[in-house]
């Protein structure tokens, strides 16, 4: 049975019939010659594809591998450098396509209306089960999920391989640095879609979590700058909340504002002169939120009554951040309206730094607007988890602004 094939022929491999050496042992020596040549050449570094000799070894830890752009390792999430907005809109495409089902996410909701927002609240990827297929990056219509080049992921802590949004977030500039041409292709569409989505995102929703405070602070600064334009301290103008404050209006906040307005009115009537008192750093029992609230209320009341300097100490209890927030806001408002020098102490609670931060920012703003000199002191923050740093930053900024305002005030007084 002979078999013919198209475009080619069946060739029988030559077994020994075409031997070059008649003397036994010569074949062995010949092959040893090959080994010898390789050994001799192995001292030469050579990464030329057209040469088969020399060493191709990369001295890895010292020498970083030159990864191609398309290289894919683990998925990451992108956010815009400028606005801090995440590109992800939680469309669930990647979660659906993921072959080992390691992507999980929840959609963000507007806190006031409760409606879904094109933004992601939490995003989890189980890196330990991820098979790096890259489907998630392929299907993502918003170019929000991309494959990272970072490959040194070994860890002794298995739990850390369940990665949350906080650790998945990377700025667009990072992706651009590892895959310039790929990003160039996706860039225009990605930004266009992002602009559309930002419009539908109220407030700080959709901003990378570690940037929320920075962005909020910046917004507050802008607002403060805008507010500083109308001249001296109209202490109790309408408590037109700066944009930073205009967002979440939870019932508690509303109540706080109401209280503040009342306090302001009271202080207006009393027309007391501001007196300077050193910031009291008395620590209340931190366990009880009630105490903090009480302190705040007391502070507000004293401000109301005397228009003098209350030492509004808000030591928020770590258990109840809401109350702490409230207290801080009240203290701030009271200070604002009374035009006095409260020592608004915001000791951020370790559980919810965001609220504390927010309060600090608000306090700062209030102080600025009042044009008085509150010594907003930021106590050396409690065991600061990762992004308390930002909170501190905001608080420091607030303090600085307040100090500046105080200096100006002093000058005007002297004059």
């Amino acid at each position, binding site marked *: 049975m002979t*078999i013919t*094939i*198209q*475009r*080619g*022929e*069946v*060739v*029988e*491999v*030559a*077994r*020994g019939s075409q*031997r*070059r*050496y008649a003397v*036994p*042992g*010569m*074949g*062995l020596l*010949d*092959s040893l010659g*090959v*080994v010898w040549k*390789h050994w001799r050449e192995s001292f030469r570094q050579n990464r*030329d*594809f*057209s*040469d*088969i000799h020399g060493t*191709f070894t990369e001295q890895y830890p010292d020498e970083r591998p030159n*990864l*191609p*752009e*398309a*290289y*894919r390792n683990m998925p990451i999430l992108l956010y815009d450098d400028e606005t801090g907005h995440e590109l992800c809109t939680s469309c669930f495409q990647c979660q659906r*396509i993921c*072959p080992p089902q390691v992507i999980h996410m929840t959609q963000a909701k507007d806190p006031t209306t409760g409606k879904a927002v094109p933004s992601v609240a939490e995003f989890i990827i189980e890196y330990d089960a991820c*098979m*790096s*297929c*890259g*489907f998630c990056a*392929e299907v993502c219509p918003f170019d929000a999920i991309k*494959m990272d080049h970072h490959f040194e992921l070994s860890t002794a802590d298995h739990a850390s391989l369940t990665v949350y949004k906080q650790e998945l977030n990377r700025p667009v500039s990072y992706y651009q640095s590892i895959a310039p041409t790929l990003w160039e292709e996706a860039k225009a569409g990605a930004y266009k879609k992002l602009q559309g989505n930002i419009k539908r995102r109220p407030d700080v929703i959709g901003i990378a979590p570690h940037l929320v405070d920075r962005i909020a602070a910046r917004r507050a600064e802008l607002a403060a700058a805008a507010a500083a334009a109308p001249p001296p301290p109209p202490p109790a103008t309408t408590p037109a909340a700066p944009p930073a404050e205009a967002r979440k209006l939870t019932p508690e906040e509303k109540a706080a504002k109401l209280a503040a307005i009342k306090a302001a009115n009271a202080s207006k009537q009393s027309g007391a002169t501001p007196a300077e008192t050193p910031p009291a750093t008395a620590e209340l029992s931190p366990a009880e939120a009630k105490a903090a609230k009480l302190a705040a209320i007391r502070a507000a009341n004293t401000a109301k009554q005397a228009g003098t300097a209350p030492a509004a100490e808000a030591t928020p209890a770590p258990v109840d951040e809401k109350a702490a927030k409230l207290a801080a806001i009240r203290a701030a408002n009271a200070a604002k309206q009374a035009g006095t020098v409260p020592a608004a102490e915001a000791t951020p609670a370790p559980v919810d730094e965001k609220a504390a931060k927010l309060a600090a920012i608000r306090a700062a703003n209030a102080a600025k607007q009042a044009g008085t000199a509150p010594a907003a002191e930021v106590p050396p923050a409690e065991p600061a988890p990762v992004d308390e740093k930002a909170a501190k930053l905001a608080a420091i900024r607030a303090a600085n602004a307040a100090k500046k305002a105080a200096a100006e005030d002093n000058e005007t007084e002297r004059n």
Partner: protein
Amino acid sequence: MLKTEELQINIGPQHPSTHGVFRMIVTVDGETITDLKPVFGYLHRNHEQIAEQNTYLQNMPYTDRLDYFNSMANNQAYAMAVEQLVGIEVPERAEYLRVMMVELTRILNHAGALGFLINDMGMWQTQLAFGMREREKILDLFESASGARLMCNYFRFGGVVRDLPPDFIPRLKELLQAMPAFVDELERLLRENEILMQRAEGIGILPRDLALAYSVSGPVLRGSGIPYDVRKAEPYSVYDRFDFDVPVGTVGDVYDRFLVRIEEMRQSRRILQQVIEQLPDAQGGHINPKARQNVRPPVGDVYARIESPKGELGFYLVSDGSGKPYRYKVRAPSFINLTPLGDMCRGYKVADVVVILGSIDIVMGEVDR
């Protein structure tokens, strides 16, 4: 006459020369093997069951894990099966890209397989290191095109995931330039090496008729003298446009399988050169833009097969009209090529078992599925 007794011993499951977790129950009479039963399943993960729970596209990266040496070939067989089931056209250029990748994979696989074979013979890592170095270059190319070295996941229904990076073809040309020197050297290193010949010639003979009856495929079948190559027998993709020969052995022993693989690397290089020549004229992009990836094929069944470096790799798919395959069956070459192992080893020495096993070239990921 000395009275002897038969003895049953285990080779494996944990043994460096079994290419994975593979066990052989060997009955020996002295040093001579009288029976051998392969036992496997240690890596069994019910791949087919997993695939039936996944959508068609989700299975693509899982096929990578079958024969992890040749993920590109697995991708191609699976993509072809789904394309035939749904009726997706593949642009010409995409077909060329596919052929290019699969032929590169063939070189890569044979370079590795021969290295391991020689390693099994006791020549240690010498040849393996040389083969691995060439393999690294090819893996670099794969990485630049697909993003991964081993689990490429490069193919999609209707084409490939992205076009080649600009420096791919120049680097490939360089690689092909070096290829003859590499293959010649490999041949020189081993072809007339007395050690290799002692261990390979006349060992593990699988006669022609038995090879056919055992349904072995790939280099094992061709080593036994049957020029059956799916690329020629039932040309798929654009393989009918290339000139290449089919090497066959004459005896069917380890040495023949070794020589067939060396010759196949040369033929793959020939195909690659023709691909590079014809690629610029090829029409269409890297993927059919109309091809949907979340396919819902009509009710029906399909069997698509390719000549993977290890043999005939086929996918049998049955669709019930939903987005997930109703039945997904892999015809794994490594698995079927193991069928005659007992017959091939009978009458040889224990030390020959690892050599014969090495010459079959199995990957346990594919055997156990």
